């Protein structure tokens, strides 16, 4: 399985040559933010992105401490190294932000996402859907005579591949969670 940090290399997803208009290399970054769990914090973080024109590719947020005093926000974003550093710095200065880390540059890390994929198909295509799901270790969490809902967890690009393979078979609907990420080893945020 590809490690998520592979995504830090320039990718063609952003522009034909992976460059910004100014010729700077565009990278994707996973930024984890530990925040006080209080009203309006997510809006403040998201507002910072929209107000300054930064990109959000995916966003996850949930309480991570007993008692719900702290939440962790994981943001997948993209930009030049300077923009990513500005995003980190702008987040860091927010009052309710306890910690910010760009996991992509911090070191090896694990990033996982979950997806629910609904496939509507009959006949031979159903068998093919099950065969692909098995290869990806996806689980059928709902089955009818004409449909499946598969659950799959893994790196985002693995989810992309799974969805692409299901498309011609009868892909009907997709629901993705966005990325949850942690550094490898004993290091914490």
């Amino acid at each position, binding site marked *: 399985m590809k490690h998520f940090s592979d995504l830090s290399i320039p990718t063609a997803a952003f522009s034909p040559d992976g460059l910004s208009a100014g010729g700077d290399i565009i990278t994707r970054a996973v930024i984890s933010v530990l*925040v*006080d769990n209080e*009203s*309006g914090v997510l*809006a*403040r973080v998201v*507002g910072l992105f929209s*107000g300054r024109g930064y990109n959000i590719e995916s966003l996850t947020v949930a309480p991570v401490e007993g008692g719900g005093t702290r939440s962790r926000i994981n943001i997948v974003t993209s930009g030049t190294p*300077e923009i990513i*550093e*500005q995003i980190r*710095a*702008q987040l*860091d*200065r927010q*009052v*309710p*932000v*306890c910690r910010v880390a760009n996991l992509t540059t911090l070191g090896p890390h694990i990033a996982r996402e979950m997806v629910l994929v609904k496939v509507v198909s009959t006949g031979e295509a159903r068998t093919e859907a099950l065969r692909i799901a098995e290869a990806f270790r996806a689980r059928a969490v709902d089955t009818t005579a004409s449909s499946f809902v598969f659950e799959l967890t893994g790196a985002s690009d693995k989810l992309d591949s799974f969805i692409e393979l299901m498309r011609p078979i009868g892909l009907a609907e997709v629901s993705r969670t966005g990325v949850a990420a942690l550094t490898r080893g004993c290091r914490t945020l």
Partner: protein
Amino acid sequence: MNATTQTIATQSDASTTLTGAEVLMKVLVDQGVEVVFGYPGGAVLPIYDALFQQDRIRHILVRHEQAAVHAAEAYARSTGRVGVVLVTSGPGATNAVTGLLDALMDSVPVVCLTGQVPVALIGNDAFQEADTTGITRPATKYNYLVKRPEELSRVVNEAFEIARSGRPGPVVVDLPKNITVGPAPYAPPSRTPRASYQPRIEPDRKAVARAVAAMKSAKRPLFYVGGGVINAGKDACADLTRFIHTTGFPCTATLMGLGAFPGSDKQFLGMLGMHGTYEANLATHDCDVLIALGSRFDDRVTGRVDAFSPNSFKIHADIDPSQINKIIRVDVPIVGDAGRIIAMMIEEWDAQTAKTDAKALETWWSRIKAWKALDCLRFTQDQSADAVIKPQQAIKRLYELAVETGRETFVSTEVGQHQMWAAQFFKFESPNHWLTSGGLGTMGYGLPAAVGAQVAHPDALVIDVSGEASALMNIQELGTIAQYRLPVKIFLINNHYMGMVRQWQELLHGSRYSESYSDALPDFVKLAESFHAKGFRATKMSELDDTIRAALAYDGAAVIDICVAEGENCFPMIPSGAAHNEMILGPEQEQQGAEITDEGKMLV
């Protein structure tokens, strides 16, 4: 102390029940608040009732909520304390937004208390309901909606702490009416810091040592000082002045940094940037070590970013880490309080015994003196009695005659040509006396700012240098000035135009003065009289000095209508999108400067 205040104190001592509004009064007193600028309304009536029943906190009734914030900003900036605003829900809060953003952009500590409909009605589109925390989120350093009475004391105390610490800024506390009406527990201020909010004050000594080493080896050094040094306090400014004298280096300042270093000091080159001096801008362009202290490389300062001080080793000290490398890449970033950084620089300077390159410095100063000799602010005023007054002459004489009074003087401005001329012709010898809207450029700032400064310094001379267009943006504050008998002087540079707009239209749009001419101005003398102030007017040179003298000597509020040459423009200037060595000088000098590119037009 009146009976009710005593009651509050007694109740508190006994840990008995107070209303939220009474708790709020106690917390404000704990925070040392003496003045609140505000405007009442339904949602804040319990707070106004609590204000009425105490005598520790004075309330200044403004005529518009935007003005309340500007007045609080000026109160804060002229005193170094937190400015406090109290407005009602809905339109009261939304009217305050411009002021809040102004305070955010210029790093001014303000706590704005907004009324809100009762918690049970929030989200019901109740009368005068607005999503105040949602609307003010991008216009504040932080904001709160107090939903439970037990949060009230902590939140208000925390709001003050956040407003004044780190990079200062505005904080909104939205107070639903049921919170202020109902019982609430009082808690004294706690010194326990919020774990997530830990501004970095202490700089990294290694970074400071690297900076000082670079300064010592510099051949063409330049200090570039911003408002962050003023925010760091008077001691920081005094240390900076001492340090600059020790080094023998030249110093320039941003619009917000004026006064951090004495304006008449021979090492001061004047302001830099779009309307900065020729010598300050060329020194910025040609220096080899740039020491930026508490300045954030605003686009009005940098001009074309890729041509900003292209060959210098750059040191940047700022309390806000997000300012470092945001616009200009620097060689030595230093995060921390400007006062601590300057103090540490002095320690390192003394510890590092190597001497500066005196010969190179002498050569550098001789180049600067040659630039200075151009006298870039020169203008020609026909001195005959009937001559039309030039705006530069009016402001220059205002400065000189204000100095002659020997009084402590605070100057606020509106936004436009008059603001730049005031920045060019006034010399501020100490911090906190120059009150202008730098970051947001808010027309209508100066008049309420003068109110705030005069309330804070009742015996000082407070002058709002204004244009006729800007003055009309918050002219209703003449009512506040009258009600509290504030002897503010409003000095109008009246040219019938939105002067800076006209200047840009001349430069960029073929002199097509689209909607920049005011054809129906009030008679400002009569306007002043209708607000119980005294009106003065000068229309020709023979009247200028006498009018200014009489107005400054007048023991009360004055509106001074100076009718000036309509077509005068503000020079020197860096055309937007151009470099510092591509300035346009005034008609007195040989014209030079870059053609304004399409990209530059977008940066206006």
